[in-house]
Every structure is written in structure tokens, then in C-alpha cells.
């Protein structure tokens, strides 16, 4: 634990108590980041900084407020706390606002999640520039004369946090993140300039894929978009590619949130234990995976992290209920925070599935769109590749899919064998049958 950060949190916790707040939660986070971006073979952006942010949740005479500040001078903090406590006393009482019962803090896993790379400081600026150049050069090579411009970047970040509560919770985290991303713009015959990107993010520098692979992938994706057209409105099978699949799940996911359930803005509120999708629909939340980008030992309330099955064979098993909304809803809390969200992979590759389906659309990008958590209705723009006779035929653009989540997830026919592991959402490509795709 960073002792300096701990000491400041403890000092604030004590100051809050002296200022008249019976209970409080104090969190301090510190981030050090480096961003290097190249465009067209020269540095475009070099950015480096360290940020500190303190959050204070106050529980004063049955009332609640939440405060954030980055002005951490003790004199300024003392004033800030005094002001915050005064303000909190003026708003309405809320009997449900308390710190969690300490029993939920217990049972924290005693493991090293392996999310901090001790070698982060060994990486020189020169090495970082070399990575970016390698990624960019690979994109230029793979893209050929169609390339208009290439942007490539490398980021690294070192994060620390400490959280304390007045009723005994103490937690700290330390993590590192490294990412490489490449964006490639190519020129189409009609002056359109499709852009595609590829990226990867990991806790450990050595686990990043080869930067040349990322650059070449971005170029390949951009070239694949050339000559895109809109096809007739039709009902077709679609395959949603692994990297973008979380977008469609998140629309569904909103309705699992205890806040939305309490606010009567959840189409899933009364569906626990019911079949809301096909047998293929499985969603597991595991915050304890080693090296996982969503790994953590405790959640926002301080509850010990646990693996949970949210959807099993299409049956809704669990919600995301934090401490506060559990009290308002009169139920046991689960957790208000996500960990690593896993849709288990299937056995066949996307190529095999395309051959088997014959005709359909491989969705590679979404555009715009939204999802209504109260009704489950959603509508979103898609780009991708039209396939016929088991082969990719041409790219499509400016098309759309729309449905209701309570119908859509019953159309999930298969998951491919290609889970995307460079995100806290570990999703494979997902196949849906009979989807209305709007076009001409």
C-alpha cells in the first residue's frame, strides 16, 4: 500500500468525523500516464502527467452526499470537508443511505491478481517510440497505395488507489496498463475514406501482441471496407465480431442494474429465473481472473469480489444490486460493480460458421444507436461484410439492425471459438438468426 496515500485518506477520514459526519468513505486514486502518438512517421502527440483524485462519501444525520476534489492541500481539504458536511445537512433525510454492513467486507480473496507489472519503469522512452514506429510501419506496408494516413499510439499507465471507511473497510490497489493502437485511413474510388483500427491492452507489457500484427490488422480491416454498399432490407443471420460484441450486450446489461430496477426502468425486473434467451446465452462475471482487465478483490461498496453466473443457458440468474438499492428494494445485495464479463467461447471458427450459414452479414462495426432499458427496444447502425455461398462477397455500410432484447437473445444460435481477451468483456463472435437488417 502507498503509505502516503493511506495517511492522507486516514487524515481525511478523521477530519470528516470531526466535522460532524458520523460515517464516511474516502477514496484516493493516483494515475501516472504516458501517451505517445505518431502520424505519418513522426511524433504527433507526446503527453505525460500524474493525476490525483479524492472522493468522499458522507453520511451525515441520515443524509448523503458525494464529493470529489483534486485540490489535496490540507488547508483546502479542511475547508472542502467542512463545506461538504454543512451542505449534506441541508438536504432531505434518506433512511436507506448508510455504509454497508461490515459483514459484506469479509471473505476477500487472499490472492495476487497479477495486475501490476513491476517492470513498467524499465521501459525507456526510446523503446516506446520503437513500438509505435513498428506498428505504424506495418500498417503502411500492409495497406499499400490505398493508405491515406496512419496513426499509431502507445500508452502506459500506473494506477494506485486507497479506500477507507469509518466502519472498518480498508482496501488498496496497484495496477499497470499498456496499450498499442493503430488507426488506418484508406481512399475508396468514390472519395470515401474508410477508417479501421486495431488495438490491444494488457496489464503486462510483455503480454502485448506484436505491434506489427496490430498495425497490419488495422490496415487489413481498412482495406476490407473499400467498395462498401447498402443492400436491400432483408431478414438474415448475422455474426457480430468478438471485439464489438460487448456493445450489443451492454444494452441488455443496463436492465440488470438495481438502480434501474428500483426506478422501474428495467425490462428485466420481473424476469429472474426466467428464460430470456436461447440456451446458448451464457454470461459469467468473474472478477478474480489472474491478469484480467476487470479483475479486482472488492467492489465499489467494499464487498469481497466473487464469481457469479448472471445468465445460464438463457435463464436470468442474477442482478447487479449494490448496497443502497438492495435496501430500497428490500433484497440481499449482490454487487453493483462488474468484473471480467465472460461469454464462453464455442467450438467453431467464424470461417467455419460462415461456410455453414451460406448467406448473411459479418458485423464488424456499429454506428450510433441506443437501447431503451425500460422496454428492451434497441436500434443500431452496422457495418460489415456480406457473405454468400459461404464466402465473404463485399463490404456493407449504412445499414441497421433493430429488435427487442427479449426477442433478440432467443436468436443467439452459436458463439465462435475466438474470445477477445484484451478487454474486461471477454466475448467471442456471436451468431444470431433471422435478424431484420435495414438497408435500401
Amino acid at each position: 500500500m502507498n503509505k502516503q496515500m493511506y495517511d492522507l485518506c486516514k487524515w481525511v477520514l478523521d477530519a470528516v468525523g470531526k466535522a460532524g459526519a458520523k460515517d464516511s468513505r474516502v477514496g484516493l486514486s493516483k494515475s501516472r500516464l504516458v501517451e505517445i502518438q505518431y502520424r505519418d512517421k513522426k511524433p504527433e502527440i507526446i503527453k505525460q502527467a500524474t493525476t490525483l483524485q479524492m472522493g468522499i462519501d458522507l453520511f451525515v444525520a441520515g443524509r448523503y452526499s458525494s464529493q470529489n476534489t483534486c485540490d489535496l492541500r490540507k488547508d483546502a481539504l479542511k475547508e472542502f470537508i467542512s463545506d461538504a458536511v454543512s451542505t449534506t445537512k441541508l438536504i432531505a433525510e434518506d433512511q436507506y443511505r448508510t455504509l454497508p454492513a461490515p459483514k459484506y467486507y469479509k471473505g476477500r480473496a487472499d490472492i495476487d491478481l497479477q495486475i501490476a507489472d513491476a517492470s513498467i519503469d524499465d521501459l525507456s522512452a526510446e523503446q516506446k517510440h520503437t513500438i509505435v514506429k513498428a506498428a505504424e510501419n506495418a500498417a503502411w506496408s500492409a495497406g499499400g497505395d490505398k493508405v491515406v494516413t496512419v496513426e499509431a499510439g502507445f500508452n502506459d499507465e500506473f494506477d494506485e488507489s486507497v479506500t477507507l471507511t469509518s466502519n472498518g473497510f480498508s482496501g488498496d490497489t496497484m495496477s499497470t496498463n499498456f496499450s498499442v493502437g493503430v488507426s488506418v485511413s484508406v481512399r475508396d474510388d468514390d472519395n470515401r475514406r474508410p477508417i479501421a483500427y486495431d488495438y490491444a491492452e494488457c496489464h503486462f507489457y510483455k503480454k502485448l501482441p506484436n505491434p506489427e500484427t496490430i498495425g497490419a490488422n488495422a490496415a487489413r480491416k481498412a482495406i476490407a471496407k473499400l467498395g462498401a454498399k447498402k443492400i436491400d432490407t432483408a431478414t438474415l443471420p448475422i455474426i457480430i465480431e468478438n471485439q464489438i460484441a460487448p456493445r450489443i450486450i451492454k444494452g441488455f446489461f443496463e436492465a440488470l442494474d438495481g438502480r434501474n430496477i428500483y426506478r422501474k426502468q428495467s425490462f428485466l425486473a420481473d424476469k429472474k429465473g426466467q428464460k430470456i434467451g436461447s440456451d446458448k446465452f451464457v454470461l459469467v462475471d468473474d472478477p478474480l481472473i489472474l491478469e484480467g482487465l476487470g479483475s479486482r478483490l472488492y467492489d465499489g461498496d467494499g464487498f469481497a469480489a466473487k464469481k457469479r453466473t448472471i445468465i445460464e443457458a438463457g435463464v436470468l440468474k442474477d442482478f447487479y444490486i449494490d448496497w443502497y438499492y438492495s435496501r430500497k428494494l428490500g433484497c440481499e445485495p449482490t454487487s453493483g460493480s462488474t468484473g471480467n464479463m465472460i461469454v464462453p467461447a464455442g467450438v467453431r471458427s467464424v470461417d467455419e460458421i460462415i461456410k455453414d450459414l451460406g448467406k448473411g452479414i459479418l458485423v464488424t462495426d456499429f454506428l450510433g444507436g441506443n437501447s431503451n432499458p425500460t422496454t428492451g427496444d434497441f436500434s443500431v447502425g452496422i457495418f460489415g461484410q456480406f457473405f454468400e455461398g459461404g464466402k465473404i462477397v463485399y463490404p456493407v455500410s449504412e445499414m441497421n439492425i433493430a429488435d427487442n432484447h427479449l426477442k433478440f437473445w432467443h436468436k443467439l444460435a452459436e458463439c465462435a471459438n475466438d474470445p477477445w481477451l484484451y478487454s474486461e468483456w471477454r466475448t467471442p463472435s456471436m451468431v444470431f438468426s433471422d435478424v431484420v437488417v435495414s438497408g435500401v
Partner: protein
Amino acid sequence: MDRIDRRAFLKATTAAGGAIIAAPVLFDGWLTFAGTEKAGYFEKEFGITDALCKKVLAEALSKGGDFADLYFEHTISNSLGLEDKKVDRAYTSVNLGVGIRTVKGDQVGYGFTQELTEKSMMAAAAMAATITNGSATPVAGKFTAVKTGDYYPLTGTKPVPLAPRLSLVENTAGKCFARSNYIIKTIARFGDGRKRIMVVTSDGAKAEDLLPGSALSAMVTVERDGRKEQFWFSRGGRRDFSYYTDDIAKEVADGVVDGAVTLLDAVAVPAGEIPVVFGPGFPGVLLHEAVGHGFEADFNRKKTSIYSTMMGQKVAEPMVTVVDDGTWPNARGSINFDDEGTPSQKTAIVEKGILKSYLHDRISAKYYGLSSTGNGRRENYANYPIPRMRNTYILPGPNKPQEIIESVKKGIYIQDVSNGQVNIGQGDFAFYVSQGRLIEDGKLGAPIKDVNIMGSGPKLLRDITMVADDLKLGWSGTSTCGKDGQSVPVDAGMPTVLVRSLTVGGTKKQGA
């Protein structure tokens, strides 16, 4: 300055009716800046003198570069939330820091610090300087205040306490419940932020401002015969609290409740290409997505925008003029000067159908040999500025709204939009319709909702065939644009407009 002294001073000077200091102060439960004067804040509160700025800028240019700039920011944001007919949560956020940028051509070195001390600023400046590797560039001998308009004057110098804000939120929620028996839940919120900024450039400009921003919003869920719908509505802008009268509370309550109740009758939307009429106001997001982003000059300088070869060409019919305007009084996207210190302006992007101007920051303006259009904006001190829109809209045209609706045999009418996105290079855009109507035989029909609409930007401009005379801005007070990981406040508007055809992402095949 000690806090007790400051409070005592505030009390004394307010009572005397004299000038008050500008520092953050708790005024009967509401943390805010006490004063409204713009100049001198960072010097008075943090000792940021011209001499210190010059020293830091010299460090930023110690290895050369075209110019460097400093962006000081101190922001206080407050919000109140109501969930069960009472305001039972309050949030406050304070942000403070300085961003230091060194620019050479189109290359940027950037460092920032949350500590406004000479040591921290010099370290951040040294970081920014690493973008170049030459000999030092001189800094201007003195800094001259940038002359600008005042597009969001603040009324009075005395802060407004917490109590009337609590009443406003509760009053709004009360009006919601009173308007319909179908309401099963109301959420209301009032947010109010004030941002003090100072931009100092190595070529001698100094600009200081106090930017207000506030919004009153409500969300309701209604239920009838087992069917539930939700709707959200808000009003706001660069306003102080005097704007939030009982009439505004009523406008928000009526807007959100009527919107939600209407959706209880919404029908399935056709899928495919059909004519689309955009109603006046926030449907202007259409322009923001389909046109505005593609005209931001960084995308054109990098040749990634579909519009990068179209300057001076006819892109729309002559009745179409699209502007990006930073000067509309009290609009959410208005700025007195941008985050590089360039005075704000009203910029015609498309004038009578001809592409006239991109939206420039200093880097792109230099690239094109033009002056900045005052579009260099950033989310906060932790980010460097890039070309961003302000308030984007179409100027009024020759038609009447009714005439436009009557011209459509079968199509859809868009009343409200929640979000949008654009694919700059391909020109494809999308926006999400939260409320609209079918048009059948020239008349508005059943309500529709939750539909994504897509199109191609250049084709959309060509397909605008009618423009009415009823221009309105959105005024939601919450519209925010995201680009390169940075969010900035904007607004969008338009008069009633007919677009020949767009792809409507419905669930019902036409004719089915």
C-alpha cells in the same frame, strides 16, 4: 488566504454592497465562486503572475517550437438529485490544474499538473518541450488581454444559496406527478457548474473567463395497461440560477410527461429508405453528426474526412446555410474565446449550398494559411485543444413547417433525438430518435420511438429539399460531444427540414 478571513470578508463586503472576492465559498449550502469578475482570478488566488507565466512558457519553448500556451482551470460543479419526491443526494466536484502545450507544426508536446506551483509547472513545461529538439524560441515581452464579446453575462454578484435550488427540483417533480396519473417514477436533477479559465500564449495573448453551465432535467416512467415507457427532458445552457423560474420548471415537467405518455401509443417503425422530416430544435444533431464533424479541420488536414477535397464546391441546394456559432447568447456551446485564446465567432460552414470553411484551431489554421475560427476547444486542463463544434445549426429557409409535412405522402417526422455518431472517413452518420411520428398522406400519424436513422453526410446535404422558417436551438443544457476521448458542451438546432430519403432502422419491413 485563510478561509475564516475570506468568509468574514465576504460577509462584510456583501453587506456593504461592494466588490467581493472571487474565491470558492460555501454560500448557505452551495459551493461556488463568490464573485463574477473575470480578470485577475488566478493571480489573486494562486499567485500566477505574468512573470511566472513567461518563465514557464520559456521552459516550454526551451527546445524550440512555433508557440506554447498555458491553460489554467478551476472548476466547481454541483448537482442535486431527487428520486423519491425529495432531494436526497448532493454531489460536488472541484477540479484544478494547468495544461502546458508546446506546438511545432502539427506536433504537440503536452504536460499538465494539478499543483499550481512554479516547480510543478516548470516540470510539466519541460515535458511539453520534448516534442522538439532545437534551439529556444523567444516568448513575447508582455501579455495583452484578448478582447471578446460577453455571450453569457452573469446577473448580480451575490451567490444563490442551496434552498431555492432544492425547491426548484422538488417543484419540478411535483409538477410531473400532477400532470399524469400514468407516472410510476420521477427522477429530477439540477446541475450547476462554473469554470474559471485563463489562457496565456507565448505570442502575447492573455484571456480570462468565467463560464457558467447549468441544467434542470427530469426523467419519468409511465405505465398503462402493463406497458411501460420512459422519457427524459431538460432545459439549460450557459445560464445562472435566475433562468430557472416556475415557467422553466413547468416546461421541463410538461415536456417529460407529455413525451412519455405519447410513447405509450408508439407503433413499430418501418425499415428501409424513406423520406424524413426533421422538426425544429435538437434534431439539429443531424447537422452536428452528418456535416459538422466532417468539417472539423483536423480531419481535413489529415485527409481523413470525406469533405477534405470539397472546399469551394457545391454540396447542397442554395437554401442550405449551415453555421457553427459560438456567440448565441447563453447557448451551451457558446464561448467568449476558445481554449487557445482566440475570440469566438459565427462561422458559415456551408453558405447557400457552397462549402465555405472548415472549423479551425491554431494548428489547422496555420496549415491552411488562414486564421483560427475559434474552434480550438478541450475538455479540461488534462487535454490539449483540437477543433470542436460550438452551436451548430441550419439558418431558416423559405418554407413553412406545415407545407413540408404536407409534401410527404409516406415518411417519418422526428421530434427528439437522444444521441448520434459519425464515421468521418466514409461520411456515414447515425442518430437515435427518442420521439417522432409517422407521416401518412401529408399528416402526422402515430408516434414512433427508439429508432436509429442512418445516412451518408454528403448525400444528406444534397437531399435536403425543403427548409422552413422556424429555426430553434435545442437548449437541453446537457448536450455533450465526444471526440478523441474529450467531452465538450455543445448545442445543435435547425428549422423544420425535409430530407428526400434516409435509412430508417425499424423492425417492420415496408409493406409488411
